[in-house]
């Protein structure tokens, strides 16, 4: 009888700490978002999002962070488009053209997972050597190339997971009606999985807009608006990183405002991808 109560007590004890650890994780997220908004929202004004920094390099007290917002959107948008152009055909190729070679497909998936694990600073350092090799200076273009390499495995794997769920019967039905491989890929598989693919694109966009270590060497930083692909370009993560280290309150406030905007963007991306993921689940053929 005593043993029974001990066993019961142990279970209750562990259930309590398990529940607590879940709650710690949830509380940490709310603490992070709260602390960023608490610091950032008061500095957020129309001027902040509609003007570039005024005055000296890093040290101007006036102005806002429009250059970083625009730069980040250019960078993340450009690299997402570029990796979509490479990644979507690749993901479809894995699931249609070579789907019967199970070992090969699994080996490629394994490889992509390894690539996903490489830290972004390594991509940054590599992008930097590549840049010197190609004779590029720190520029938006160099940043887009580096970030594309960084998000490509993420995008392909995310799309692959989605396309993988299509039953083989659909492939066979499409072939039996006389469609070619590429018709099957783009008219059937792509259409069927559009919501899931949008989720994958959003995930990659989120990665691209938030990463600092890969753009640190390659995109550089400037107080000016980005005007061409060959110019250095400010990005939100680096706007946070650099301006926070300046011991002037007004400049630091710009960093906190940038942080609030970045979190806001990430939250919107997260909500959108939830909506699309739900849509995808509804469309799924069982």
């Amino acid at each position, binding site marked *: 009888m005593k043993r029974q109560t001990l066993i019961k007590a142990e279970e209750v004890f562990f259930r309590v700490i398990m529940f607590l650890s879940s709650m710690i994780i949830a509380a940490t997220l709310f603490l992070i978002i709260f602390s960023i908004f608490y610091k950032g929202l008061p500095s957020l004004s129309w001027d902040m999002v509609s003007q570039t920094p005024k005055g000296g390099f890093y040290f101007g007290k006036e102005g806002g962070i429009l250059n970083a917002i625009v730069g980040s959107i250019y960078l993340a948008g450009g690299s997402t488009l570029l990796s979509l152009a490479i990644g979507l055909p690749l993901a479809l190729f894995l699931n249609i053209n070579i789907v019967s070679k199970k070992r090969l497909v699994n080996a490629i998936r394994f*490889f992509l997972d*390894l690539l996903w694990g*490489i*830290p972004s600073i390594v991509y940054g350092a590599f992008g930097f050597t590549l840049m010197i090799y190609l004779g590029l200076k720190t520029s938006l273009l160099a940043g887009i190339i580096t970030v594309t390499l960084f998000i490509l495995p993420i995008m392909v794997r995310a799309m692959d997971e989605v396309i993988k769920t299509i039953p083989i019967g659909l492939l066979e039905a499409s072939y039996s009606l006389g469609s070619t491989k590429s018709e099957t890929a783009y008219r059937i598989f792509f259409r069927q999985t559009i919501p899931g693919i949008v989720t994958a694109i959003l995930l990659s966009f989120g990665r691209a807009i938030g990463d600092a270590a890969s753009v640190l060497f390659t995109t550089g930083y400037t107080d000016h608006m980005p005007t061409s692909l060959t110019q250095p370009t400010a990005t939100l993560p680096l706007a946070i990183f650099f301006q926070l280290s300046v011991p002037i309150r007004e400049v630091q406030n710009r960093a906190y405002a940038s942080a609030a905007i970045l979190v806001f963007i990430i939250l919107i991306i997260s909500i959108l991808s939830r909506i699309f993921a739900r849509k995808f689940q509804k469309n799924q053929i069982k």
Partner: protein
Amino acid sequence: MRVALVLVIILPFVIGIGLFLKSRLILQDVSLWELLFSSEWRPLSGKFGFFPFIVSSLWVTVLSLIIAGPICLLTAIHLTQYADNWVLKIMHPVIDILAGIPSVIYGVWGTLVIVPLISNHIAPLFHTDTSGYSILAGGVVLAVMIIPFVLNILIEVFKTIPIELTEASLSVGASKWQTIKLVHIRKAFPGIISAFGLGLSRSFGETIAVLMVVGNVSKIPGGVFEPGYPLPALIANNYGEMLSIPLYDSALMLAAFVLLIVVLLFNLASRILIIRTERYR
């Protein structure tokens, strides 16, 4: 499509070879052994000892796993076995958003919350004095960053345990908790180890967030309240000046190369472990 495939497959090799070629310059002068285990870091006089940075990296990485590991394990069991629907409804978006928050935001949060917390509240408990920018701050921030990552893998691992095992255990009279403790955890053990391995490698390569809270003093840290200077932070912090000195440039590229190799090996080992356990399910 084939071109894209080839591009993806040769990419890690190209990265590795590119970084290696750049680091050859310094390897001609100094042996790898000396670089990795000497602790003298004076780039201007040509002394490049990576030892303090490697030790710092190990400190923050291991610390982050010590903090995140138990929390992830408990939460994963909770979410897969016990949690009510409302908890799941909260926790799934929470994990997703945590995974999506950029590292620089974690860094800002670290400087706003964790660093003052350590210097004002935690360090006095241990009767030490610190600015808060320390190994501990780096470990805590990293722990939060790898939680969603490790947790997602652990949830997948626990989901693959066949229901028959649970039924068999329950039918011979084990309680639910006994089943979890004696059957599930034992069955999932290789998966748990590999989830932790992947978490470690994620921690090891994380840059900006750590850089912002860890203090960046290039000496071997003596404890968790002292500042450290992990390898990725070293690379990120010195990119501006390295161009002027070829040897410096080469040394930092070597650091990136070492980082790449360590992370790839960890990833490889963990992923192979996962695949093998799934095969013998």
